[in-house]
């Protein structure tokens, strides 16, 4: 076996690992039996080391759709199926993903292991709410198909458990009915943090909501942002009647994010944030847009991660409980504004209630930021961690490549239960990742 150099989306960390892929169940069973310290990896779109380890099992070739009940919107697929693939099959039949993160280039297995959330988390919760069953190769080599009801403990530590309970082989997903592939989109400008919070709360009835936030503002402009709201467009509300269930974006108007990477490179961050905010002239804009531009604006710039250069970048995503959100966010934004670490992307969202014991979301505001790696960044993020902890928040494991184990243990109240569970379900350490070792989970 030849070792390969591998890293995830942020290019950090970059490691050498053995990588096994598989086409058939018996192949992955054999790999599990003959090895220890293995971890499953999908499309490598997590922002850290959760799917990195000494031996990686790639699920990418295990990508068959096994059943599709077009009438009731149930789909059963192997863990390596990409959401982009799934969309191209289900959208023409009038179905959509019930929950989708900001990229469609992730696998079903990854979506469950990270228990991803989307713009509708405040209404619908995380991905696991729409998973009716999971089939898993467990560390003891048994294959088990389970649901939330049939094996609540395994379910609880699998959804959001970063792949540590076993290798997800397939899952059944309940889809969402749509009449068109278009979104009724509304965007509202907010001058500062108080205003954007108020707007989020006023618009909680919207199915989809999130905001772009300009992280370089200080003083009274802190929190300057644009709120993006959306609802699936029904048939009657569209001007066109043909071809309204198309996974490809055929509309003329696209969300303004399609510039090539060289533009992004040459922009200074503040100029970009300024332009982005002022591009929208009026306070409120209403449009009908294709879902692709609404949910996946960055997917159209295929390798946008490369704009951060060879050293890579880190993404920092935290959530702070509602009652402490505004205070915590203000403190963090102030700290960023004063630092030399500008962030190009800031995504703010009001989340709904906690989904299960190990998943990231809690009721409150979450902010995601990108930082190019340079000297002092790690220390700076440690400082931000302290602010997050002080306000009772936590960090998203799928975005994490660097948090200290103390931070994890202080913020995830189920950490000890997970550790105990893993030490009994996997006493031989069949499964572990760089992240699980760094955080001393397993």
């Amino acid at each position, binding site marked *: 076996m030849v070792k390969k150099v591998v890293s995830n989306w942020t290019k950090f960390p970059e490691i050498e690992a053995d990588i096994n892929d598989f086409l*058939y169940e018996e192949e992955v069973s054999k790999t599990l039996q003959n090895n220890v310290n293995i971890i499953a990896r999908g499309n490598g779109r997590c922002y850290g080391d959760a799917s990195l380890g000494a031996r990686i099992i790639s699920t990418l070739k295990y990508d*068959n759709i096994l059943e599709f009940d077009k009438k009731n919107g149930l789909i059963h697929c192997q863990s390596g199926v990409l959401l982009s693939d799934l969309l191209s099959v289900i959208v023409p039949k009038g179905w959509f993903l019930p929950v989708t993160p900001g990229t469609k280039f992730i696998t079903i297995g990854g979506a469950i292991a990270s228990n991803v959330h989307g713009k509708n988390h405040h209404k619908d919760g995380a991905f696991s709410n729409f998973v009716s069953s999971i089939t898993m190769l467990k560390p003891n080599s048994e294959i088990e198909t389970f649901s939330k009801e049939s094996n609540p403990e395994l379910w609880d530590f699998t959804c959001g458990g970063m792949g540590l309970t076993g290798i997800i082989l397939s899952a059944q997903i309940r889809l969402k009915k749509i009449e068109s592939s278009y979104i009724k989109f509304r965007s509202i400008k907010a001058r500062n943090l108080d205003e954007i919070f108020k707007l989020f709360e006023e618009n909680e009835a919207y199915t989809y909501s999130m905001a772009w936030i300009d992280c370089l503002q200080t003083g009274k402009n802190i929190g300057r942002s644009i709120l993006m709201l959306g609802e699936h467009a029904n048939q009657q509300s569209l001007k066109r009647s043909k071809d309204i269930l198309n996974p490809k974006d055929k509309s003329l108007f696209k969300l303004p994010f399609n510039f090539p990477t060289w533009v992004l490179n040459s922009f200074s961050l503040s100029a970009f944030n300024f332009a982005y905010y002022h591009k929208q002239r009026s306070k409120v804009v209403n449009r009908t847009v294709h879902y692709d531009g609404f949910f996946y604006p960055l997917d159209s710039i295929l390798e946008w991660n490369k704009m951060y250069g060879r050293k890579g970048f880190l993404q920092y995503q935290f959530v702070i409980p509602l009652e402490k959100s505004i205070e915590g966010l203000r403190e963090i934004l102030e700290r960023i504004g004063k630092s030399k670490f500008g962030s190009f992307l800031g995504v703010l969202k009001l989340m709904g209630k906690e989904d299960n014991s190990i998943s990231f979301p809690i009721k409150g505001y979450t902010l995601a930021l990108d930082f190019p790696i340079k000297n002092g960044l790690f220390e700076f993020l440690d400082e931000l961690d302290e602010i997050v902890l002080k306000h009772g928040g936590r960090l998203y494991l799928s975005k994490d490549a660097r948090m200290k184990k103390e931070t994890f243990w202080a913020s995830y109240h189920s950490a000890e239960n997970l550790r105990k569970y893993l030490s009994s379900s996997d006493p031989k350490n069949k499964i572990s990742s760089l992240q699980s070792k760094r955080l001393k989970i397993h």
Partner: protein
Amino acid sequence: MKILILGATSDIGIAVAKLYASKRANIILASRNSRRSIPLAKNLEIRYEIAVDLMEFDGINYQSHDDFVQQLPDDIDIALCVFGYLGDQEESMKNWKEAEKILTTNYLGAISILDQLAIYFSGKGNGSIIGISSVAGDRGRGSNYHYGSAKAGLTAYLSGLRNSLYTKGVNVITIKPGFVATKMTDHLDLPKPLTNTPEEIAQLIYKAQVNKKAVAYPFPWRLIMFIIGLIPESIFKKLNL
């Protein structure tokens, strides 16, 4: 359009099935353990709304080949013979069983079923027969000459079959991949610029079939094999290839 894939659980077999399914061809997946192809069959039916059938086929069980072809539906347009066995050269020098497996799978098994398919397609008076040979058959190398000799035999056979079936309206295609990143080669450290993916080989097969080619190499193997062919044997024998 309907394509029969013999060796459907192989990486190239799967890639070809996916590509032809995306062109809306109906597919028969044949392999020694056809149950393994059920997920792929369902997947292709769901994604492309085509019909996929499964058949049991064992390349080295020659006696079964006659029956196998008898059971085929009469509307197959393309037959692809993609099963093979690379084996281990060192092992095959020590152990005749390994050498025999390489020779029977890659040569005798292929020829036995191709003979039957030649009769099937001659009767129809149209269609394509595609055989996956290898650049290893163009010149024997120290690292895999049992495999290479079997593929050399297969190449010669396909050339003859092409000549023989030309007047019957049947096109015979020889595909000669170089290095392909598959399960069969997973343990080898292949030079990346010279290694094709199964998907690239599937594209090569599709283009060769549509354009009624006789022999197809993936880039840049035709050139490489031309150069390798020019090396005098007195020098070639000293090379570590």
